[in-house]
């Protein structure tokens, strides 16, 4: 007899997207995050320029 338990359907946690392993890895990948740090800074500076 299998010990598997079906995931509870129609509950809160059933529907939202979950990040896959690659997405989770990239969130803490140093090289990629250094690139994102630069991009985020540039976007924020653009936002501040448009706001002032």
């Amino acid at each position, binding site marked *: 007899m299998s010990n598997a338990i079906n995931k509870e359907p129609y509950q*809160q946690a059933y529907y*939202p997207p979950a990040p896959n392993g690659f997405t989770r890895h*990239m*969130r803490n990948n140093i090289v990629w*995050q250094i690139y994102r740090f630069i991009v985020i800074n540039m976007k924020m500076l653009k*936002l*501040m320029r448009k706001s*002032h």
Partner: protein
Amino acid sequence: MARVVILGAGIAGHTAARYLHLELPNVHEIVVVSPNPTWNWIPSNIWVGVGQMTEQDVTFDLADIYKKTRIDFRQAKGLSLHPEGGAASSRPYVTVESTLAGREGQTENIEYDYLINATGPKLNFGATEGLGPEHGHTVSVCTASHAKEANDKLQKIVDSLKRGEKKTIVIGTGHGTCTCQGAAFEYIYNVDHILREAGVRENARIVWLSNEYELGDFGMGGVHIERGGYITNGKTFAESLMVERGIEWIIRAHVKKVEAGKLHYETLDGSFHELEFDFSMLIPPFSGVGLKAFSHSEEDITAKVFAPSGFMKVDADYTARPYADWSAGDWPKTYQNPIYRSLFAIGIAFAPPHLISKPMQSANGTPINPAPPRTGMPSAAMAIAVAKSIRDMLDGAPEPTHTASMAKMGAACVASTGAHLFRGSAATMTVYPIVPDYERYPEYGRDLELTFGEIGLAGHWMKTLFHHTFIYQAKMLPGWRLLPD
């Protein structure tokens, strides 16, 4: 020679003081009145609340900074405005009461040519029975000392979890009309992170409880982000993060009462519920600090100058209208009081014309809808605009010359989801404009190029950078003027 008085020395008030110090000719006086002796970088209170920082890391003494400038600092709280003059003087003045040790209760009248109300919010814990750290059963991260107390209690919970006990943690908003969901959002993920780092996460049930109609509302009606080939509502990302971290959520909720270990709430469908907890951080609703206003003949004109919320009326359109008729143009631009032209209100102290999120009421008539967000970047922008307007008006301009409408500016929020140099993360979000403008952006109300969000370690580095940069700037250290506000 003129005198500009600033009530409040938080992010808005202190920014106004810095820029007036820079921009005004030396012949003019600048007086800052604040009941608190310290400045607080509030966004980092979250980290004090989980023990990652101390109170000293997020505050500094104002008197030490102002001593290096020509700013006259009075440690006192504002009691009443007399914009027409009054019994004490024919010139406009504000009555303040000292909060300095040894001088508590002493009052003083300070005449002014211009006054900037930057008093921020009253943390209205009293709006919900049993809410808050002083007279209630929940903790808070709204001030540095509250956050320290929150961490002291949180660490006791962590110790219990390490002993194998099961605990329930509830974090969110403590009333149907709260704002600052973002701060609670940060706190819940940092608590989750702390528990994981301590190896005890599986013993805790963590629940998000808020007045939002959907997750990701944050008091600005939610946000749409273009990502992965789709334009997706922030609700999807917010729910995804909750599920990823094993956090349950309750939304559309108004907390009616908090007892020791149990809270009572009503939901939009009119039903009533209870939730038992061991540790709870619930943001209180905000109101104005309770300033009064009097005419020259000492008639109480508070209702003319302030909205019923206690926030000061400015150049917004306060005409009552249904949601479908709201527009970006309703929002103030110059922050000048429409009746008394020498009064301004900035930051949290001005009265918004209405919500940003759609108003909702429960089946019992209880308002359950987030108030508009009040964050640092727009507060600083308002402060700078008003400082420059006052500079120009003192130079002869008949009207304010600078504007800072929330419908024409953006905001950047970095919500920490766990502090660590390499294992940390944060949700970085920018929104432009803060108040949706469906005339300029018919489909989503916002510029999708300047509105974005992502989660990652880079966000944590951003938040750390903000912490050091904005404290450096607030301390008016060399080169502060070169740093963006």
